[in-house]
């Protein structure tokens, strides 16, 4: 069994198809939708936690890619500009998963990418614009 968190980006022509249903039904994957959104260009974004047999997981990703859905590992979705971060702490109270937290007693802000669900609240809240989003890329290989 493997467990992965990924960001899926759906082109406009497939957003009306029951893709997640197929992912569950055909590949026996357990999915947990952390976030889903369709923008005004009708493109979809979904943050998913996927659990299942490694072979089935790989086949599931192939299925997604065959539809033109790009897959990005979540741990690489949000980054911190280490130069810009002053360790003020403005992000701590609003980060819903504790991915951003204070280390004591140094009082430095730490960022645990593995706990990030790419809600992007920190990106809007950081006074220093130290939190950023990695641009989507179709060529980015899924993690194995």
């Amino acid at each position, binding site marked *: 069994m493997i467990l992965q968190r990924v960001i899926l980006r759906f082109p406009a022509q497939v957003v009306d198809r029951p893709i997640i249903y197929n992912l569950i039904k055909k590949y026996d994957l357990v999915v947990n939708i952390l976030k889903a959104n369709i923008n005004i260009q009708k493109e979809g974004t979904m943050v998913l936690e996927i659990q299942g047999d490694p072979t089935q997981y790989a086949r599931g990703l192939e299925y997604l890619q065959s539809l033109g859905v790009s897959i990005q590992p979540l741990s690489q979705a949000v980054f911190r500009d280490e130069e810009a971060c*002053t*360790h*003020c*702490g*403005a992000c701590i*109270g609003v980060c819903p998963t504790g991915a951003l937290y*204070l280390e004591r007693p140094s*009082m430095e802000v730490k960022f645990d990418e593995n706990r990030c669900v790419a809600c992007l609240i920190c990106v809007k809240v950081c*006074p220093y*614009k130290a939190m950023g989003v990695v641009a989507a890329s179709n060529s980015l290989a899924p993690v194995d």
Partner: protein
Amino acid sequence: MERTWEEINEKIKKGKVVVLTAEEAIALVREKGLKEAAARVDVVTTGTFGTMCSSGAYFNFGHARPRIKMYKVWLNNVPGYAGFAAVDAFLGATQLPEDDPLNSIHPGAFSYGGGHVIHDLVARKPVTLRAIGYGTDCYPRKEIRTVITLDDINQAVLFNPRNAYQNYSVAVNTTNRTIYTYMGVLKPRLGNATYSTSGQLSPLLKDPYLRTVGIGTRIFLGGGVGYVVWQGTQHCPTLKELPDGGKLFSGGTVAVIGDLKKMHPRWLVGVSYIGYGASLAVGLGLPIPILNEEIMYWASRGDEELYAPVIDYGEDYPQGNSRVLGYVTYAQLKSGIIKIEGKEIPTAPLSSYPRAREIALTLKDWITSGRFLLGKPVELLPSIGETPPLKGLQEKAGEEEGEK
């Protein structure tokens, strides 16, 4: 034990001065006792790095040919104040471009303002200067648009009317909606608390009676050297005795000045608070001369003895109600949880403690290496009880329109 400013400066010049940061002083007093620590240490350094809205800079841009008397001025599209002589202007940290969407789509982003311009100048980035004049016989030109850098202009002076608030409220939100404040995003129903003081490193909290701070005090300002020039606006230092025996010092502020050209972009950073506005984060450090044991006593109080009031920013603060929900220590705040109205609330700071520590250490290094002498104030700031209480602004019916 008594020590004079002059004796300390002599020791600095001879390389024999003993300087500790406030953190180190706390540890030393705990270990060796007040008497021995005061005898051993000459100076205690402090530091703070956080958003300080009452900040700004003034400039002399130099004269163009033909000359212009600048009537209105913009730096990177952010308006300055040009109501001075021909090519002088002031730029405030929270000033926004005239075409900023502000909070029209709430919460606004406020991505660029006066504080960001100051940072860009200090970072030696080119900045667009635009000015208009109305044309006079001596200043015929009516418009100029050019690009300047900090090195191109004659003077650039950071001048902050209020910095380094002695203490600050802890912000919470008792309403049912998320609010966007200068104390950050506050979740509904006491969902989180924010605070913005470096506590045991905070400059004016370590000399709470202001016995060593005044006009002429030399400080770390924005990575360079600055001076206290006056009491800050709203200066009104007070001491409140708390029911549990604790002491709450608050209300002291300083007005500071320094050569912007000698400052560093790491210590003057433009900030954007979602839903609130733009501003400037300032790094400021103050040396406290240990003139006697009493000054060492106050300089060595730790976070567990320093208190802050908890204020509701959902209802009380915006409406001007003076209700305090409770008092907590900086030790509690830094632990990550405070308890208010029976509820445990997660806390987060807004001023950077690691940066505050770095400032105190830098100032210690400057003094120890003989590069920084203490500035003995020509006049101390008003202490507790020496200022009138702060006035509110009264709304009164004015004269009829058109009357003079």
